């Protein structure tokens, strides 16, 4: 068996604040295969974005390891990192801040090739034109500036910039959450087409479970910097095991007018603060199933099946028998 494309082990990242140490990512393990989409979902402040930025080598973690295609990225010098950067790209959330306002569309898409000293000017021009076709931008857009485009078009420009280097892994940080519904569908379709055509792997970060459901092969739910459940898509939707996953699935607004909010059970309470030391299960203050053990002991991720793990005392020992 070949090595997975991305292996994350024991990743931690903390920030000092005035009120104590904020744990953004607190010990995450994750494995991503080639051509696969792994979705990271959770509420704001759960650390999913920080994790994405660590994988894209924008932030250095405090502890842990990120292995990309067999090579350790943590602690690598900028010079040694450069060849890796060609293979790990990122698509950003805000289509208005993610493009250099002073550069033309051609320059923005061409820039990565220039940075890596790849190909001559004529060839670069052709590569840009091809990439623009591929992401559904008209070629005459090349000499215009980002502010002349709508949010959806700008997101296409950002995608073109990320893909021009032909990367293996693309970190997508909330790529559609700033877009309108009708445009969102266009971009999601584009992302899955490109994945199929180019064999990309996505680390797909989103707070929107509907989007996650559509895009992901595997799903990881994060809560206050930790993974509470990881599962293949089908297992996650059919049998989510962590109470938080279950709550998130229930809370997902569904355009079915027969499921009224007044009839749904909802999570009460606020998230505990990510600052300072914590004890027990982080979710217990909002968990409808919490019992005394949850206050003392933090549950580890229990294996439940192929790629399925959940961090809850209630699933301990519930692993499906081997071969099931």
């Amino acid at each position, binding site marked *: 068996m070949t090595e997975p494309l991305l292996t994350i082990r024991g990743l931690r990242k903390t920030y000092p604040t005035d009120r104590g140490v904020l744990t953004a990512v607190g010990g995450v393990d994750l494995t991503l295969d080639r051509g696969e989409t792994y979705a990271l979902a959770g509420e704001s402040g759960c650390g999913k974005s920080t994790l994405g930025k660590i994988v894209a080598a924008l932030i250095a973690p405090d502890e842990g390891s990120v292995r990309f295609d067999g090579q350790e990225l943590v602690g690598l010098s900028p010079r040694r990192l450069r060849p890796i950067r060609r293979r790990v790209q990122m698509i950003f959330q805000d289509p208005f801040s993610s493009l250099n306002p002073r550069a033309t569309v051609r320059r923005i898409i061409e820039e990565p090739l220039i940075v890596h000293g790849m190909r001559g000017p004529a060839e670069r021009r052709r590569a840009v034109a091809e990439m623009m076709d591929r992401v559904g931008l008209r070629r005459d857009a090349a000499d215009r500036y980002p502010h002349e485009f709508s949010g959806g078009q700008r997101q296409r420009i950002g995608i073109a910039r990320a893909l021009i280097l032909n990367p293996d892994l693309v970190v997508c940080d909330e790529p559609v959450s700033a877009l309108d*519904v009708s445009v969102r569908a266009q971009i999601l379709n584009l992302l899955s087409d490109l994945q199929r055509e180019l064999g990309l792997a996505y680390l797909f970060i989103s707070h929107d479970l509907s989007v996650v459901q559509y895009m992901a092969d595997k799903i990881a739910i994060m809560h206050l910097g930790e993974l509470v459940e990881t599962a293949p*898509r089908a297992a996650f939707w059919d049998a989510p095991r962590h109470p938080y996953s279950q709550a998130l699935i229930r809370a*997902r*607004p569904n*355009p079915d*007018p027969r499921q009224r909010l007044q009839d749904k059970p909802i999570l009460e309470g606020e998230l505990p603060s990510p600052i300072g030391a914590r004890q027990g299960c982080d979710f217990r203050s909002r968990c409808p199933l919490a019992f005394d053990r949850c206050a003392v002991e933090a549950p580890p991720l229990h294996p439940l099946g192929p790629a399925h793990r959940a961090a809850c005392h209630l699933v301990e020992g519930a692993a499906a028998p081997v071969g099931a």
Partner: protein
Amino acid sequence: MNPVLSISDLRARLRGPDPHAFVIDGLSLQVGRGEVVALVGESGSGKTMTAYSVLRLLPSAIQLVGGEILLGGQDVVGMEARQLREVRGTLASIIFQEPMTSLNPLMTIERQIAEMLLTHGKTTRQTAPARVIELLELVRMPDARTRARQYPHSLSGGLRQRAMIALALACEPQILIADEPTTALDVTIQQQVMKLLLDLRDQLGMAILLITHDLGVVAEVADRVAVMYAGRIVEEGPVVDLLEAPRHPYTAGLLACLPDVAEAGGRLVEIPGLPPKPGSIREGCRFAPRCPSATDLCTRVSPETRIEAGRAIACHHPRMPA
């Protein structure tokens, strides 16, 4: 029974050289007592501007050029500034997407709500603190007494929105206009806030005009839905009918392009193209360039709004009722 809010043939346009740059173009909508009406649309559809015009809060770049807005029977469009101040808060209140920008960062929650009450003569200096706590408890602010003395920045997004709701409800308005009230919040908090609004509706009997882009939220909470596109209401009706059997191709498209409906791994339905800019389409139906069932007629003649079986629809070729 008289509706709380009745908008008829409202028109607003961008100030500037183009006289056809309508942001709101002949919009009519009614909200009855205790009713939750959702005004749904994408950005630029004019839904927020409609909400703002009810309280005459339109930005200076936009000008009301026609129509009538009756709030509790009084015409808002021709109102003097003094009368307007009285209406704001007592007849209608508004809450916004980002409560941080609508709460004064230099005043405690208690002070802001008390100011509101005192301005409208709803309380005296002596009774104000007690009334503030009452209001905060009404919006289920946890630990209301402590929170009252805090500043907006020390509250989380969800609690800030609760404070904003308490402020909006201070003078017991008949209608609450909620402009994307939960868009900035996480789903679990979003549910809490929406549920609170529904409970308050039941308790106080106020109507809610919910401005949103999220059909999921609409399905969960609205009684009636109006779908806006390019300054017009293209379809309106009771929530179950409208979402289960949309008749306007735009409504149908919006529902179809949600990831929920897609088969796992299948393609999402797309609405091609982009919404038009104000004034860019002069003739015919504004949705025609993106519409799968558009004909020659659609590009020439703007469809009238027809009312059929409790549904209003502006389309030459509506989908057949299921």
